[in-house]
């Protein structure tokens, strides 16, 4: 389901052009393996270890306490998986701490959860959906 996983923001400086892409998003395989090796992609709430009903404040607290553990500066030398864990929680946090982005994410999550397994909404639909809502993340929100 790499097509449904948000990867990176950062296209903000590009001019908007008509979207035609319905193919799966190409993931770059070089050392970019955030979250690779996991059986199923975690939801952003699972990444931050908060309930889906968590308040923004709870999300901030969870992010901060996890940052203190997972930031490469806080890790002992050679321990942990380096920056990947921090980047993952950072990405989850940036999305969930922004109410608008979180609402979009919640909605897409519910779509995926209820429609996709039944097969009534195919890949092209989910892609259309993400195309319609554009980027899932904001650049910076905290």
């Amino acid at each position: 389901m790499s097509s449904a996983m948000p990867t990176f923001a950062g296209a903000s400086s590009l001019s908007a052009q008509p979207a035609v892409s319905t193919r799966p998003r190409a993931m770059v395989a070089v050392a970019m393996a955030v979250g690779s090796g996991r059986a199923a992609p975690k939801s952003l709430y699972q990444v931050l270890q908060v309930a889906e009903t968590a308040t923004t404040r709870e999300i901030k607290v969870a992010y901060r306490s996890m940052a203190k553990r997972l930031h490469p500066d806080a890790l002992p030398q050679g321990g942990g998986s380096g920056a990947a864990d921090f980047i993952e929680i950072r990405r989850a946090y940036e999305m969930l701490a922004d109410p608008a982005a979180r609402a979009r994410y919640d909605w897409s999550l519910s779509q995926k959860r209820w429609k996709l397994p039944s097969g009534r909404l195919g890949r092209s639909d989910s892609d259309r959906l993400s195309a319609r809502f554009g980027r899932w993340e904001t650049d910076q929100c905290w």
Partner: protein
Amino acid sequence: MLGFTFHETIVPAALDGTRMFPGGAPSRLLALSRSSSTRPATATPLFFSTPRLPSFWVGVSYPTQSKPPPHSTRRRSSKNSFLSISSSDQLISDLIVIDPRRMDEQLYMVASDSENTCEDKGQSAFHDVAVGIDLGTSKCSVAVWSGAGVELLKNTQNQKTMRSYVMFGDDVPVGGASEVRAYAEDQILSGSAIFNVKRLIGRSDKDPIIHGSKILPFLVQTLDIGVRPLIAALANNVWRSITPEEVLAIVLAELKTMAEIKLKRPIRNVVLTVPAAFSRFQQTRVERACAMAGLHVLRLMPEPTAVALLYAQHQQQSLHENMGSGCEKVALIFNIGAGYCDVAVTATAGGVSQIKALLGCTLGGEDILQNVVYHLLPNFDTLYPNHDTNKIRSLALLRIAAQEAIHKLSSQSSVQINLKLPDGTQIDKILDQSEFEDVNRNVFEKCEKLVRQCLFDHKVSVEDIDDVILVGGCSRIPKIKNLVLGICRKEKEFNGVDAFEAAVTGAAIEGAIASGVTDPFGNLDLLTIQATPQSLGIRVEGGGFVSVIPRNTAIPARKDMLFTTARDDQTEALIVVYEGDAKCAEENHLMGYFKVSGIPSAPKGTVEISISMDIDAGNVLRVFGGAIVPGANHSVTPFMEVIMPMLDDGHDWCAQALVKANGSLDVATMPKKSQP
């Protein structure tokens, strides 16, 4: 270019600790001694002379018998072979400059126990704690975590902050930190001393800051072709050239010596503050200067983020009971020193300080000083067209008068200036506050713009700002203080930090954290999440700049973006990496370039070229690039991985050549919707 000399001329025999004495050594010799694990580090002198300082010897010795600290390369992996010298287990603890004729006088025999003022018990537990150095344009200072708090180290003159200059008199080069004999201001301004190096380092001779520096007493010569400017000090009536890196290295080496005397241990690891406006290229120059001085940089911290760390510690201490409850404090930090001005917005809670926006520019007391000098003598340039002794003396007098006036205007409403220049020109002027503000309107306007831009980047209104922290020498100027407080609609500035010591204190805290020191009271249970002060991106077709990692992205960061070919059947693409925020690539700082080859032949706009940028926790930037097969997850050819900045000097000149020679290898942007 001392750095390269260092690297290229390592004498193998010297590597096993052979002593080299100047009497028997050829005049251009570099020897490097290192302590191996089998031999304790005893006083092992190291001598080398630089081609730039032909008549002096630079010696490195071990003044103490203490054990070398276990080497810690946790933060910053070596970026190049030069730096890897300094991150090996060699222990250079003391770089001093010695005239060979006076060797037997043992100028710097330092390990005398009686003059040590630090409590030994506290020190023993912190034997390898990194020191924090604030290397300012005008002043510098060193601080270290001493167990209970941060202690600022004083030099022999009992000064906590020392002038950053190196004097090339008829004797040995001496910096402000050692102050063997204190130089008066007019001696420093006689052309024999180099100062303001932080404004000069890592800039090409087309840079307006370099051109503005031609008004300084020492020589700044430019060719305006995009190469390194020539900088020279007047010694024995000869302009002797030196590089900014070497000047910085001498200053750093003196600070290192000073700290070693005080702490009675070798110093190797440092946390250095740098302006937020420093490009990555400039940062590599500072790292090189540190390596020359035998220092290993654990972290280069933008100055306001060091202050943010100190602020986070304050919050931690005062809100201990609320810890972790998400009680978030937002502070605007405004730092203006002699050379640079930085603004940061930080959100702090539970000891985690998150830099939300960071911005800087080359603006400071030097600009104010130059404005006042030109105000006092508007036709200064026509009166003294050449860089002769007359000009230097007049300039020195003007600078001293202007400096005094600016200082006085911080506390009084007007100041009288009476000055007689060597050629008989008499200046009598009363400079009042409003005139001063008028003269420096450009400076204040820039400050205002910078603060507003930073607030805009942060996307939060001024009502959300809890504290305004003003640090740096020029933050004491009433107009600047009122201006920043006015924008933030605050009555008072945050009074918990010292305007002159905040940055170095923050650096020392970071040094302790980075060295793995823990504090039972939780005073070091802190984390700073840094942000990129400038956007990082590549050049696209037509000379535009597309940022891959935008400004104010949290570090560590990793982003990728798809590009495509600009021409039909294009099989190679030139990726030119820039740093900056201008829309036109050429206005940004060139960091490096590489070619992606083996692109399958296809109509333009159909091939996908993936560019990924990765900044690790040590702030090392890696750029990955390669053509990928559409719809598949693998690349056509192996990806390229390049550490940036990869360029050495002459980057400005290189940028022009690149554009001229390789226009047909452009890349183009992909539609927004097909971005990953």
